[in-house]
């Protein structure tokens, strides 16, 4: 007993205890659901069998039914559009801003931090504000576009099937740009100054320096950031709930919203689990790439 106590306070037991309890917690609350999700996707689950462990086994039926649903491929397409457009938009705006603040004028670091408010706000609030900004008849976004002569009539962002997905993408780009900028700023500041000085002495112009020094030096942070962007974008749920709810007629529905909608609106937990399994595999692949691209830093 005393040896156990002294090990807990002063030996191996101390470390094992510190790491063991959180690990068990994470395994019980993340690992077990993860595995159970896979099990559930092969079962028939309805409101009556929800409360029992033993349910009829149906093999790949849930997956087959899911894929044969007419909305399956459109929703997968929307997910791909949402991912590509959000990540590209966040990254390009973020990179442009990071380059501006890299010029390091007085007040630059304070202002740069201020941009991050978009990222700390609750997603529901961001969604509510953009819902109102993008309103068709009275939205100020339409008004500004009209003043700039970009559009002539009002665009019904949220209710027009051609634009509904883009209304969420616009809000998501706004939300994520600041995070991208901060992360790219870190990468930029780690490039040694003498590289630029040497290039300047050799007569390289600003554009040449950008292509031959900045971009190559940033390659690993850009890789990490884009896979991180993929991970974050696949987690985006609040904006869909606050702006379009996946509508009209699924035109802005994406996989991560559909999974929730199947489970909690249509009470089809088995299909919800099946689509979750498919998407979690995608996220896992992205995160393996992310972990690998930051591997040299993981070892510290």
């Amino acid at each position, binding site marked *: 007993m005393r040896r156990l106590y002294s090990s807990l306070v002063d030996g191996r037991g101390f470390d094992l205890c510190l790491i063991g309890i959180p690990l068990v917690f994470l395994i019980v609350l993340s690992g077990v659901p993860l595995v159970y999700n896979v099990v559930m996707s092969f079962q028939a689950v309805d409101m009556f069998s929800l409360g029992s462990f033993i349910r009829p086994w149906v093999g790949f039926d849930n997956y087959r039914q899911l894929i044969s649903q007419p909305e399956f491929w459109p929703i997968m397409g929307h997910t791909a559009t949402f991912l590509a457009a959000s990540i590209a938009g966040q990254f390009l705006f973020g990179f442009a801003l990071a380059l501006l603040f890299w010029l390091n004028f007085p007040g630059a670091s304070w202002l740069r931090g201020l941009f991050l408010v978009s990222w700390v706000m609750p997603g529901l609030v961001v969604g509510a504000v953009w819902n109102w900004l993008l309103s068709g008849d009275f939205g*100020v976004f339409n008004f500004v576009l009209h003043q700039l002569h970009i559009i002539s009539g009002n665009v019904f962002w949220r209710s027009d099937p051609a634009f509904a997905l883009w209304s969420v993408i616009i809000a998501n780009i706004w939300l994520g740009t600041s995070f991208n900028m901060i992360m790219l700023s870190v990468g930029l500041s780690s490039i040694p100054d003498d590289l630029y000085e040497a290039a300047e002495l050799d007569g390289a112009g600003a554009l040449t320096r950008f292509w031959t020094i900045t971009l190559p030096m940033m390659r690993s942070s850009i890789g990490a950031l884009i896979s991180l962007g993929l991970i974050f974008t696949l987690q985006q749920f609040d904006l869909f709930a606050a702006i379009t709810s996946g509508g009209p007629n699924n035109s802005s529905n994406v996989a991560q919203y559909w999974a929730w909608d199947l489970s909690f609106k249509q009470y089809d937990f088995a299909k919800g689990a099946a689509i979750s399994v498919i998407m979690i595999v995608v996220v896992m692949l992205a995160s393996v790439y992310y972990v690998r691209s930051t591997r040299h830093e993981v070892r510290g």
Partner: protein
Amino acid sequence: MSETTKNRLLLVFALLLAAVYLFPLYWMYITALKTGSEMFRTPPSFWPDEPQWSIFPFVFQLKGMNQFLWNSTVIASGSVALIAVLGTGASYVLARYRNVWIDVGLFLVLMLQVLPASLMITPIFVLFTLTGILDFPRTAVILAIAAKSMPFFIVLVRATFMSVPMELEEAALVDGNSRAGAFWSIVLPLARNGILVAAILIFMQAFGEFVYSKSLIQEIELQPSSVGLNAFMGPNTNEWNRIMAFASIYVTPILATFVLLQRRIVSGLTSGALK
């Protein structure tokens, strides 16, 4: 062009960009202050004719926001407490040793960080129903958030522990401290700032959490503000000034905290997130 003029021009340009970027936030506050007819005016007014300050106490009363905000606070505090107690020890061990097992542990933690809440909620809901945890909905949400956010906390705090020199701890051990004693009285105080920043970030995240609360809490009197705001926004609403007032009351404490602690939060975030 001299250096100062160039700097001034850049600052003005950056300020303009910041104004454009933060316009949605401005529009939220301004809309809240407008009357019902003024907010539907074309062209829209960019400053309210008569600011309706009374809308804030009105909406607060009307929607019973004290209950919503209280629930958000309970959920966020509970999650932060659980995460800080469990996560600090884990990040310490993950920072102090280097071997294959630590790499495996880190890899697991990073992988758990990426699971989207809206995909994990289906199995969590079913498991919580089966085990009866769902009878305590706010506790259920706290557990779910803790599992979701702890990896992020570990990544941030581990970076802090890495910067605490190991020699200080070894000196304390030579002086006759136990491992636990050295951890408690030397390492923890040195890492306090980093832990605090990570805890604040987690608090802000948990304060705005939506998916778990929406799915696990059915009783209105136990729901947090995010779910309240979602319920307020019906499909064909025209109460935008009231919704924006609700949003303003909800988000202002978070914004104030962020602006006050901006420098620390940004540096804490950048030290861990890409590493």
